[in-house]
């Protein structure tokens, strides 16, 4: 039997639950923003949403198309600038960075710049934008991404935004702020965390209807498999209803397949 929700809905509902009430989150457009909006309406009414272009804590009437459009500060607390929002992250006031990405590796490093050689790229992507900044400064980085072998790679072609780099202690050695780093990777198949010892990606829960083998076959590296993997709780009726009716009534994000 097909579940009563699609994989994008599953990812967004799952991701939303990781955002604790009373915390701050810097988001990109699309799924991360939808997840933050959903969290505000379900489990984290005092979640403070920050947009890199200057918008702070809007009463979001709809999902922004751009992280700099007027929705990002609609009835907001502050409409400032990039320097204001980024330095707020620098000072350690922002708990979560919420990103997407074209490629990710086992240490949570993200590529959104090029596939292939940098100077003769097979594919050129937009680049960092503010992603590197968020992943450097915010305490915990969450990534929403569809999982497959070309996206989950042993080594990304280009580290656009830092995960744990080449392993434990490497962020600090590179000079990144102490105690920050990747937190959760939410895919269409599973939720991954990171092993506190090795800083490698580790399966935390597998979505309902998905098998461990699906998770492994859709990754070019082998994530750490704990003794016992749990099942990701599926979206609740309430979550789905709010997501569909209030967060994304036009199905801009949840309608993508």
């Amino acid at each position, binding site marked *: 039997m097909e579940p009563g929700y699609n994989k994008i809905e599953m990812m967004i509902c799952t991701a939303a639950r990781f955002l604790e009430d009373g915390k701050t989150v810097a988001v990109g*457009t*699309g799924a991360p923003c939808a997840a933050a909006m959903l969290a505000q309406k379900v489990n984290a009414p005092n979640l403070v949403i920050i947009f*890199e*272009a*200057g*918008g702070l804590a809007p009463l979001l*009437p709809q999902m*922004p*198309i*751009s*992280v*700099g*459009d*007027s929705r*990002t*500060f*609609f009835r907001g607390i502050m*409409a*400032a*600038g*990039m*320097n204001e929002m*980024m330095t707020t992250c*620098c000072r350690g006031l922002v708990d979560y960075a919420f990103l997407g990405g074209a490629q990710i590796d086992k240490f949570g*490093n993200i590529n959104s*710049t090029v596939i292939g050689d*940098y100077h*003769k*790229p097979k*594919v*050129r*992507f*937009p*680049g*960092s*934008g*503010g*992603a*590197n*900044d968020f992943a*450097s*400064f915010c305490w915990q980085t969450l990534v929403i991404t569809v999982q497959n072998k070309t996206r989950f790679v042993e080594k990304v072609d*280009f*580290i*656009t*935004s*830092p995960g744990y*780099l080449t392993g434990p202690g*490497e*962020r600090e050695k*590179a*000079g*990144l*702020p102490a105690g920050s780093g990747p937190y959760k990777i939410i895919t269409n198949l599973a939720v991954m965390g990171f092993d506190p010892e090795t800083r490698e990606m580790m399966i935390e829960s597998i979505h309902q209807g998905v098998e461990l083998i699906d998770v492994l076959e859709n990754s070019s590296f082998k994530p750490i498999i704990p003794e016992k993997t749990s099942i990701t709780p599926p979206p609740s009726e309430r979550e789905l209803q709010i997501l569909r009716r209030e967060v994304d009534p036009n199905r*801009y994000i949840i309608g993508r397949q």
Partner: protein
Amino acid sequence: MKTLQEGKNPLFMDPDPDQAREFFQKKQRAMTDKRMTEKEAVEKFIPDGCYLAIGGFGANRIPTAILHEILRARRKNLGFLGHTSTHDFQLLCAGHCLKKIDIAYIIGLEARGLSPNARRVMESGEIEVCEWTNYALCVRLRAAAEGVSFGIARNMLGTDTLKMSGAKVIECPFTGKKFVALPAIWPDVAAIHVHEADIYGNCHIRGISVADLELARAAKRVIITAERLVDSYAIRINPTRTVIPFYLVDAVVEVPFGSYPGNMAYEYFSDEAHLSQWLTTEKDPAEFQLFLNKYIYDVSSFEEYLELCGGIKKLKELRRLEALVDR
């Protein structure tokens, strides 16, 4: 000063604050009427080969009239600074105006998808690139605005973004901690769209300012396009609101709906249908050329472009969308 690591890419602009000071020493400070047309502004302040930066955020509060005029004037070999540059970058790629760029985000139009033509241009190798992040470019402009040769931050560390930048890693003389030193950049010219300006160039912006306050201070020349001109009493009655003072500004161009097809906060929403047409048409280069002719090259003014795109009826609709009155 010991450099622990450095990016491989070249700096396109000199980070020496004394070259900038020498320029600014001679820049006019008197309050004079700076009104001109977009055509005059581009002729006067944006020559071939100069280094340009565009205000706003890609398709939000952008000086579209100036960008169109750059294409019509067939400007070539420009330098360009783009933090999140989207429709602005798409336009400059459409005109093949660019030679060397300092960038953080290109090709994409955020949630709208990627620009096929900008991607072709970027993958062709015709443009020299130096890689940065949004905040890194913000710090570079901020350092220039502060009259110093670099600013520091803790981003890019450990990544290939740093390797393909022009930054250097240094050690703090107080804490011994590592920081990225980001070289100041003084663009030759910036074009910024604002809500209101007086004839001298004193400006108001409503909503987010992105990195435009830093940019207006870093750029050697500043072209302002404004939704509307206001009497200078409107400036003096509330000087707290002034975000760009007149002595930074070289040209003031009144362009109502000047950020179209982009969003202008509190004024009008973006024309998503038109932007989507750009992305679709770009897939076929021949068709795209006709599209460019129709909307830019064969058009004599920005007003004519607005008429072509639906005129007052369309603009009323975008106003209503912005204000959310039809929800």
